[in-house]
């Protein structure tokens, strides 16, 4: 098979914007979707901070539009999850199981995925009352008490969504102030169904033996006192981890696992570029991801034409 010019790994706002720009530059990009195709916006409801939509746009609708826009200019999008990459020499190789693609440039836009607690038990009860996606699983907790863990925008969005369904929503946060944006905080605080437990950590989730969530075991971080909160569901909104396992030992990373970039979107390997949440642990917005996707496509185009300074 002949080499491609550019392969883009990931199909969130960063990957698809990179695809749009690369396609318009006649680079015929191949986009490999990944199993979380469309990225984190696929799990959101109304996105109110995407410029140009004064009334907001639904996250999945935005991604459908962006995908169609990239395809309109010739981006080829394939389903599947990359199983391995070889970035040691050019052409670079990207494999999906037995299928192997090669390209002169690669743009990594694999994003970040929801972080779990470090309890072990939370993964065991995943789909049994523990969830990282309120819009997916909130349905099962109509008329039941639930908890949301976290103090950022993700946690507030989950709590606000769940307040419409659950009998009560308890937000559990290990600090005494929220990290969430002002607008999200105000919205969450204004809803009667949402209450807050401050300076509190979850130390255990019951009941693994029954295979369902019945209660959370909590610890006050100030006093050390333990308590139990009876809930049927718990939603984890404590942030994200970058999807960089594929690149360990091949690309330079920060201690927290995010890819290091320099001079725009360049990674430690010439010809490999990174965009979106996989290399951004600071801003992590759909619009900054899209912006960095554009940068990566322009950098890749200049690299391929030998004009990247």
């Amino acid at each position, binding site marked *: 098979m002949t080499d491609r010019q550019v392969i883009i790994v990931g199909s969130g706002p960063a990957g698809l914007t990179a695809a749009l720009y690369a396609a318009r530059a006649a680079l015929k990009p191949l986009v490999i979707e990944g*199993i979380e195709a469309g990225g984190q916006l*696929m*799990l959101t409801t109304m996105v109110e901070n995407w410029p140009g939509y004064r009334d907001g746009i639904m996250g999945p609708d935005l991604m459908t539009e962006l995908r169609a826009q990239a395809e309109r200019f010739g981006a080829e999008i394939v389903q*599947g999850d990359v199983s391995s990459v070889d970035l040691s020499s050019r052409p670079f190789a990207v494999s999906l199981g037995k299928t192997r693609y090669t390209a002169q440039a690669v743009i990594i836009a694999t994003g970040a995925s929801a972080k779990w607690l470090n309890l072990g038990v939370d993964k065991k009860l*995943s789909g*049994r*009352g523990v969830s990282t996606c309120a819009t997916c699983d909130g*349905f099962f*907790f109509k008329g039941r008490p639930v908890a949301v863990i976290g103090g950022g925008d993700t946690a507030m969005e989950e709590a606000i969504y769940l307040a419409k369904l659950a009998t009560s929503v308890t937000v559990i946060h290990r600090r005494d102030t929220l990290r969430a944006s002002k607008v999200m905080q105000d919205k969450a605080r204004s809803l009667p169904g949402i209450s807050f437990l401050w300076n509190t950590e979850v130390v255990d989730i019951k009941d693994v033996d029954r295979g369902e969530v019945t209660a959370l075991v909590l610890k006050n971080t100030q006093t050390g006192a333990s308590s139990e909160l009876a809930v049927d569901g718990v939603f984890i909104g404590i942030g994200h981890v970058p999807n960089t396992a594929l690149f360990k030992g091949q690309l330079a990373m920060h201690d927290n696992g995010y890819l290091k970039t320099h001079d725009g979107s360049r990674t430690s390997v010439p010809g490999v570029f990174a965009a979106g949440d996989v290399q951004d642990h600071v801003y992590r917005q759909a619009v900054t991801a899209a912006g960095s996707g554009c940068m990566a496509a322009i950098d890749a185009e200049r690299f391929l034409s030998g004009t990247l300074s």
Partner: protein
Amino acid sequence: MASVNVKTLTDADFVDSVKTGVVLVDFWAAWCAPCRRLAPTVDQLADEYSGRITVAKVDIDENPMTPTKFMVRGIPTLLLFKDGDLKETVVGLAGKDDLAKMIDRHL
């Protein structure tokens, strides 16, 4: 369009439908974005394993009893039955290769 090899199950026929052989069931709903993402993978598995296993879907909005019975509290969830016994549970999105390996373990 779903593959012709994917059966639609309901609360009424679920138990009988998983009684024999290997049956992979996808619990989904129209409003569930990750479910839409998983659907093409389920379709491909149904086509590739056609004649060897049964691949089926349950719409949880229309069939509340079956997900309750198997304690499904999140979707997408895939359950794999062999001769009526629940053998595997996969919650959330999964890659086709991993699912194929899981199916192969029960053939």
